[in-house]
């Protein structure tokens, strides 16, 4: 359903694309993207603040939006730029890592009726994000957009306004760094 709506919005012309319409359709998407780019230690307030900045940036960029990409791709790009800008402050970035490391857990799973979150999942989340946070933000966001959000390389290239080669290069380096930084496991995986 969401994909169909996004696709339809991508076909609309500027007259119907107001900030409010975009908010109604994509607030969920923006909050999800921001929280995933920030990591599991980000609080709801952090996510809301950045989501607010994303929509303000969307409002400013809306007159220039020419429909050359799907609206969702365009929103991914703006969200990523806002998050990257937020993370560029070294103090802020450091605080985020400290908060991540201090967190003993990341809160309960959202849907209590879904299959119970396994201990292996929680452990993997901590290990993977602990390693990801030490990767350069530009590489990390490409990794997150590709591996977790499921965007394709051309979509990421369009969203971030970089070449596909740059996407692939950053992805490869992020994977290599992740593999290097993930400490060896004490117990095997199932």
């Amino acid at each position: 359903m969401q994909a169909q709506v996004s696709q339809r919005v991508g076909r609309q012309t500027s007259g119907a694309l107001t900030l409010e319409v975009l908010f109604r359709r994509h607030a969920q998407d923006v909050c999800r993207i921001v929280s995933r780019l920030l990591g599991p230690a980000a609080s709801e307030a952090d996510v809301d603040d950045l989501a607010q900045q994303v929509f303000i940036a969307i409002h400013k960029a809306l007159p220039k939006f020419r429909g050359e990409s799907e609206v969702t791709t365009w929103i991914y790009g703006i969200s990523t730029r806002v998050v990257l800008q937020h993370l560029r402050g070294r103090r802020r970035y450091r605080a985020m890592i400290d908060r991540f490391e201090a967190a003993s857990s990341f809160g309960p799973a959202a849907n209590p009726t879904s299959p119970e979150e396994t201990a292996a999942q929680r452990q993997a989340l901590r290990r993977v994000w602990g390693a990801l946070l030490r990767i350069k933000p530009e590489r990390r966001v490409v990794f997150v957009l590709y591996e977790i959000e499921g965007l394709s390389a051309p979509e990421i290239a369009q969203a971030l306004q970089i070449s596909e080669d740059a996407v692939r290069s950053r992805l490869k380096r992020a994977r290599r760094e992740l593999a290097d930084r993930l400490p060896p496991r004490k117990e095997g995986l199932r």
Partner: protein
Amino acid sequence: MSQDPVRQELELAKQAIEARTKPLSADRQARLWAQIEAAQSQPQGAAWWQSIRAFWSSRSFELSVGLAAAAAIALYVAIPKTPAAPTLTRGALFGGSAALSEGQTVPLKTTLKARAPARVQLAQAELRLEAGVQLELRTPRAVRVLSGGVLVWTDNQPISAQTQEATVEAVSARFRIARTPTFSEVTVHEGTVQLRRANGAMEQLKAPNRTRIPIEQISQTEPSKPAKKTAAVAPPAPVPALEPVSKPLARAPARPSKRTRKLAAPKAPAPGGPRTAPPPIAPKEARRKLAQARRIVRRDAPRARAMAEDVLDRSPPPAERIGALMVLADAHRREGRASKAATTYERVAKSPSAGRFLEEAILRQAELLLGMGQPTEAIAVLRANPIKSGLLAPERTALLADLHAAQGHPDKAAAALEAAPQLRAQAIWRARLKIAEALAPTNIARARTLLAPVVAHAPNIWASRARALLDAWAER
């Protein structure tokens, strides 16, 4: 799962992330929207001053003398100083242009062209010119916008601002008037203005209000203008040129359209026979072409229209046919052909395959009919297709309420809003405020009821206005 341990860990981490993804609650969404609206209303003034400072420090204000006229009455144009503004520097003379210096008098019928945002003081009004605007100063209290936009502040003296499609007269108001290649637009930010359309229709616009007038409206009242456009697509024109092969090239109009070239191409094998129908288009190719057309329709509407027409000519499947009609309608709208656009949207709305385009087609058709001065027909369109829910339900409901109110039926306008109590959106809050004010003189109880959801659910920017109205009515 793959055997790579890193990949396995990543898959587990992804599962954990998915499990933690919470849907956005309605309260949190409302709170976030309120923050966005509040943030939007604040920084504009600061940003505007920044741009003014940047303008004074780097660019000159370009004045181009358009039509020569005897300087019977001089217009005093003063560029007011900001508290710490640098001294205005003179610019160079080029092509009949001159820079303005402070306090310089300007003859009538002077066209101002601003490269960057600027401010001009006019008698008792202030004009804030947007970058790129072309503005003609006609009298000390009348300006004409040729292209671009200008924000007008007027004190207790009247001012008239016009484009080719609309004339706005205002006292003690703040409004923006703009003209683009396809429409004129009036946005009222404070106070009330009188809008007179080129066809003579008059209406009062009270803040907040935005009204758009397609340029084709002029073409309906000035028949000489569309004659050039319609002649180019008149069916007999290409036919004589088809007989000899070389003649279409020799006699082709200065800008032969793709359609003309396509008509010329297949005539060679059968000069006296009918044009062979193009082969049906495959769904995938149709979708690809339409996606491309949608991407370019904003910046190149004629080309997008040609692409949509090409798809339609090739008997596409129903879903792609509807998509092509929507692109065609959008292109007509952007090219200023309001009547054709409305007709095409109507075709979509009446098609059983309209699907997810139905709502937008209805809304667009109604907006265009309103722009063409046909509010009754617009109401009929909105009421004939009452989709209760849908992404554009707030805009459709608000438009219906506005239409009823414009026709002098605030009670019907109120009924339209009351029939959709679940809708909560900016368009609805604006409509409720406007209709409540219109209804108050005759039915204050109903007006109060209309405002109750605004107070209860709307962001503060709207709720505070509703509370102000209710307080004002409390004494009644």
